[in-house]
């Protein structure tokens, strides 16, 4: 797979005079797994919104390969191969687990295509594979609305996998998970990286440490520090931001 890199340069987002992102620059190479940490209000979610087209930057460039993401809307960006998992798991409650993954499965997305679409054996296999991967085979025909919190997180990750994206944006994937689940998730994300680029936003430093990759610290909308987990943990500015108040 010929990978594309994600490239943010000088991105600024202003809401009503408040600078949610301030001249943020960041590069994620193909196949890289990048963790992003930062205190509340550091601009992590806004950064994801900008990449996925939900929010238009006030100024700056956002590119994926040679595509200018600031001109595209969410579905187009998603179809370019950028998948996103939300902080609060959002799945389609009225649909079953199977159907949720079916919708995420890479396929033509237009209305007519959806009407004509029928479940091929290949597609069913792929859905089964994803459900196995996230451990939800048993619940295939249960509506997603009745799943537990952890299962919903898994389902959403499964949907992300079914989308077969080139770049995954994962927002706090282990919030509310048990330790075992957290470990499993970390392992899985590491496994995914390499084939695809992954950006993980997380509070949980232990989890970030478990990932063991390059870390970016955001603060007040711009990059405060970048490097290995040990490097950033010893960075006085980071200590100041995390502990100083």
């Amino acid at each position: 797979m010929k990978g594309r890199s994600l490239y943010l340069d000088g991105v600024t987002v202003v809401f009503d005079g408040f600078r949610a992102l301030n001249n943020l620059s960041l590069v994620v190479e193909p196949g890289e797994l990048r963790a992003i940490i930062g205190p509340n209000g550091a601009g992590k979610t806004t950064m994801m919104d900008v990449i996925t087209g939900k929010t238009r930057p006030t100024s700056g460039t956002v590119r994926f390969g040679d595509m200018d993401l600031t001109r595209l809307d969410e579905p187009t960006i998603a179809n370019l191969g950028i998948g996103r998992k939300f902080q609060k798991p959002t799945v389609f409650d009225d649909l079953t687990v199977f159907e949720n993954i079916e919708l995420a499965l890479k396929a033509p997305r237009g209305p007519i295509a959806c009407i004509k679409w029928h479940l091929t054996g290949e597609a069913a296999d792929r859905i089964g594979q994803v459900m196995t991967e996230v451990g939800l085979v048993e619940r295939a025909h249960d509506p997603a609305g009745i799943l537990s919190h952890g299962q919903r997180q898994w389902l959403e990750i499964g949907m992300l996998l079914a989308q077969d994206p080139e770049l995954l944006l994962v927002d706090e994937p282990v919030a509310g998970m048990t330790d075992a689940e957290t470990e499993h998730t970390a392992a899985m994300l590491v496994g995914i990286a390499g084939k695809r680029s992954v950006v993980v936003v997380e509070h949980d430093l232990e989890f970030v440490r478990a990932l063991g990759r390059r870390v970016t610290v955001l603060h007040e909308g711009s990059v405060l520090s970048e490097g290995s987990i040990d490097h950033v943990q010893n960075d006085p500015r980071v200590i100041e931001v995390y502990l100083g108040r």
Partner: protein
Amino acid sequence: MSIALTAPPPSRMRLGIRTGLIIAVLLLAALPILNMLPRDSAFHVSDFIVSVTGKWICYAVLALSLDLAWGYAGILSLGHGAFFALGGYAMGMHLMRLIGPRGAYGHPVLPDFMVFLGYTELPWFWHGFQSFPYAMLMVMLVPGALALVVGFLAFRSRITGVYLSILTQAMTYALMLAFFRNDMGFGGNNGFTDFKELLGMPLGTPSARAVLFYASLVLLVGSMLLCAALTRTKYGRVLTAIRDAESRARFLGYDTTRHKLFAFVLSAMLAGLAGALYVPQVGIINPGEFSPGNSIEAVIWVAVGGRGTLVGALLGAFSVNALKTWLTSAAPDLWLFALGGLFVAVTLFLPRGLIGLFDRVKKGRGA
């Protein structure tokens, strides 16, 4: 793995509904035949019942179309009556052109209202309506085009929920005001009446009533099958997904504007067809059909029946209208209390409508 490969088995509930529907359709289909029986027969059904049921069938199609937009795609249109009325007007224009020189003033081309309002020639948009295929095309195209424009602008700007409802309400209100103007060339407040024939068949005869009744029934069954088939495809699931979490669907790569637009336009066309069959049966179309209250009532039929189920829309349209027909005669001063009370009770106690009630009772029994 096999469990994942198969689609879920149809529930007993669904089968029950299907049988019920088939019986209901057969019973409906029998009405015009029973109407032909001698008057003193115990099974004789009066013209009134046939004509009023024909009207309800058209309402049921309107409810169905609304359920597709609201129950599945989450577009609560408070202006669906406008599509219904536009379809009706297109059909009305055809019927007016068919009157020809049989009008009171004997003008070969102009309808009566144009003659006494002093028109000297037919306005341009009236041309072509003498042809039945053209009129039928317009019955679907005009509501469809309006839905396309309004829907495109609204969905593109991410106008959803309450805002969309108010917007569509304003749409039908503006149309009502516009159609009330006599200068528009649509007969103003009086609209169109005094139709003579359709497809060479004189209106107001039992056979014409039966033909229109069956045409409506065919439309109803056809729309039901279409909607049911559509909602069972992946497209139906995409609509449900959009309804429940639109932004999630967008991040999955679904261009929700296009999907909603498709459903909305289709729904508007169905409503237009319903309106087109409604007009020759009630014998009048006028701007009152655009009144916002009518559209809200249609939403209430769906809510009473149970939204997002298709069958609920039919159930609601038939039961509320039957109740209204009965009460406006049985309790002319009090029927608004009964109907208003029903709406309140259903929203409070039956959030899933009558269908939900049956469901609950059934579950209660099974347990």
